[in-house]
């Protein structure tokens, strides 16, 4: 049951990810990506990380993708007028994709043969919101603060780059 679910979700994830980059219309791509993110959230929930799954949906599908859609619409890119890459480039891209996938996969597969998987539950709670909160705000408080710094500077930066200043308007 669970493994069927896993396979279905995986298919959706991979399929929608592939469609994201194969769609000619950027809006379609964005929507396919949302689908992909939702399926990933499904994976998270499958892995019993409900909280993370929800956060994921909120941040990615809710914030990031909306931002992207806004941008796409702002630039009026809904009609695909993108010039396609030449065929050779596409071929090479495909080759690169296959090559990289094959190499990494084969590395991992060969590795797992040697490494015997052991899995024993210790039964402790490790993924409830409470535990996550504790870990995040006790052990990981410094990175947490750094994330704050990161977001602050991203904000400053985004404003710095995209804000039109008054002199420009008058000019």
């Amino acid at each position, binding site marked *: 049951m669970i493994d069927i679910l896993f396979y279905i979700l995986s298919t959706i994830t991979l399929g929608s990810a592939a469609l994201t980059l194969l769609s000619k219309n950027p809006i379609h791509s964005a929507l396919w990506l949302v689908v992909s993110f939702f399926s990933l959230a499904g994976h998270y929930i499958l892995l019993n990380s409900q909280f993370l799954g929800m956060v994921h949906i909120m941040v990615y599908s809710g914030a990031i993708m909306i931002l992207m859609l806004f941008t796409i619409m702002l630039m009026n890119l809904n009609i695909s007028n993108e010039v396609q*890459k030449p065929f050779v*480039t596409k071929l*090479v*891209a495909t080759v*690169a994709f296959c*090559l*990289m996938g094959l*190499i*990494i996969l*084969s*590395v991992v597969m*060969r590795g797992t043969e040697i490494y015997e998987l052991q899995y024993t539950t210790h039964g402790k709670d490790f993924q409830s919101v409470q535990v996550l909160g504790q870990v995040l705000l006790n052990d990981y408080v410094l990175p947490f603060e750094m994330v704050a710094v990161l977001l602050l500077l991203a904000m400053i930066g985004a404003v710095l780059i995209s804000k039109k200043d008054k002199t420009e308007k008058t000019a």
Partner: protein
Amino acid sequence: MDTNVILLLLLVPLLGALLNICFGKKLGNGSGIIATLAVLVSFIVTVIAFFQVNTTKQPIQSDLFEWMAFANFKVSFGFLLDQLSLLWLLFVTGIGTLIHWYSTSYMKGDENYGKFFGYLNLFVFFMIVLVTGSNLLITFIGWEGVGLCSYLLIGFWHKNQSYNDAAKKAFIVNRIGDLGFLVGVFILAFLFQSVDYMTIKESLMHGTNHQINTWIGVAALALFIGAVGKSAQIPLYTWLPDAMAGPTPVSALIHAATMVTAGIFLITRLNFVFDLAPQIQNIIAIVGAVTSLFAASIGLVQNDIKKVLAYSTVSQLGLMFMAVGFGAYEIAVFHVITHAFFKACLFLGSGSVIHAMGGEQDMRKMGGLNKFMKATYATFLVATLAISGFPPFSGFFSKDEILMTAFHNNPALYIIGSLASIMTAFYMFRLLFLTFFRNFRGTQEQKNHLHESPASMTIPLWILGILSVVGGVISLPGNSWLNNYLQPIILNNAANNHHAFGTIEYVLMAVAVIGALIGFGMAYSKYIKKGDIPQEDEQITGFHKVLYNKYYVDEIYMKIIVKPIYALGTFFRDVVEVALSETIFGLGKIVDGLSLQGKKAQNGNIGLYLFAFVFGVCIILYYLFIAS
């Protein structure tokens, strides 16, 4: 005392040289006087020293200071006045004084009058160094020093580039010999841990090591090459005829009387070394004999008065080498001395002629000068008789001794020597007849100008003429003063085991005289009786032409040595240099080209960068995880 004598001997000419070179312009005519006096002082010192040594039988020796030090030996700046060096000094300074005196008139009016005497004095200085050096390296200073002066004096009229060529040639050819000299020094120094004559002699006298004999042979050969260069023997003789470009007194002093005999001096000095290398002695004798014949044959047809004398000098030097080669050092020395007298006389005489002719040297333009220049003619005649070997002139004795020695040692060489002597007589009388007899063939202007030279020129001529006549007394057959005198120097003295003076010797003498007469007769019949005048250059044909062009030796040397070197120079400059430079800096060009290609590859396309990135990752992963 000894040191002072040596210093006086050396420094007076040096001082004269420096004075004349530095202040020649200011001294004016005084420079000639200063120079002559300087040499005269040396001569007087030499005479005093000569008598001292002759009485005490002890050489005067002085080491001034340590000059060079090597790992296994030291070279001191030392001088040695022994019988041999004094003998040389006597005629060097003696004839030197005369020639200086002669030059005061000869060179009068030259713009570099002072410098001329400066160089002459410098030459005398170096010649003194050469003969008095107590070791090979001091001798080498003199050896090269006289070469330097020879260079300076041959090219004295430096505005004429062909004279400069001659000077250069003289120096360079001499240097070939000098390399031989140096190699000889290296071997001797290596063998004996010394370059000092006395020390080498000592160590040779006490215990000869047979193993070193081959090396001694090599050393002797090398030193002989040095002598060949300096004394103008085959194959390095070509510079001497060209050296006649210098002022005539120079030819007399340097290229006839003194410097060119340095080779004989060296070999005599090192007789103890050469005695150990019989094969080399053989070579020396052969080279000497061949040179004498070869040069004499060229002399037969030359028309330049000085060239004839030059080839004659080469030829006479050949005879001396022949003597040296037979181990008859004292005979060679004897001939050196007599040769110095008569050849100096001949050169100065020819100088007088040239002076009178206003610089003309071609005998075809002369003739009948005996009427105008009595003193010159007389002395010239005497010297000619001497060189041709007519008794009782000095040349007869010395030449005869050489031929006699040759006859005893190697009859083939005797015949060659005799032939050379006959030729000598012929060309000398040819010279005499063409110059002084019959009618004057020059221009009217020259004829009006003809005059006897001033006393300062004729007196030296007379003195030398007299010496040419009586010079033979120092080594009369049977009772040779010279042999006894040189006994301490020459280990293997011919006086000790001299062959008996018998019938055969008288026959040989007679043969020699007849030979001289034949030469005289042929010259007489051709140039007096028939009244031949040598042909113009372009009319000369056949073997005569070969002779006239000196067997084309100069041309051959030019073709096989000088030209290839130049060609090589051009080749190196234009091909090898460029190629080397290109190969080494070509690497730079390759890098530069790579850079250009790289610049093209970096085309600004993000896609490309990403591809590179991804492929880079793939390659790294492949290498790390799959390949290994």
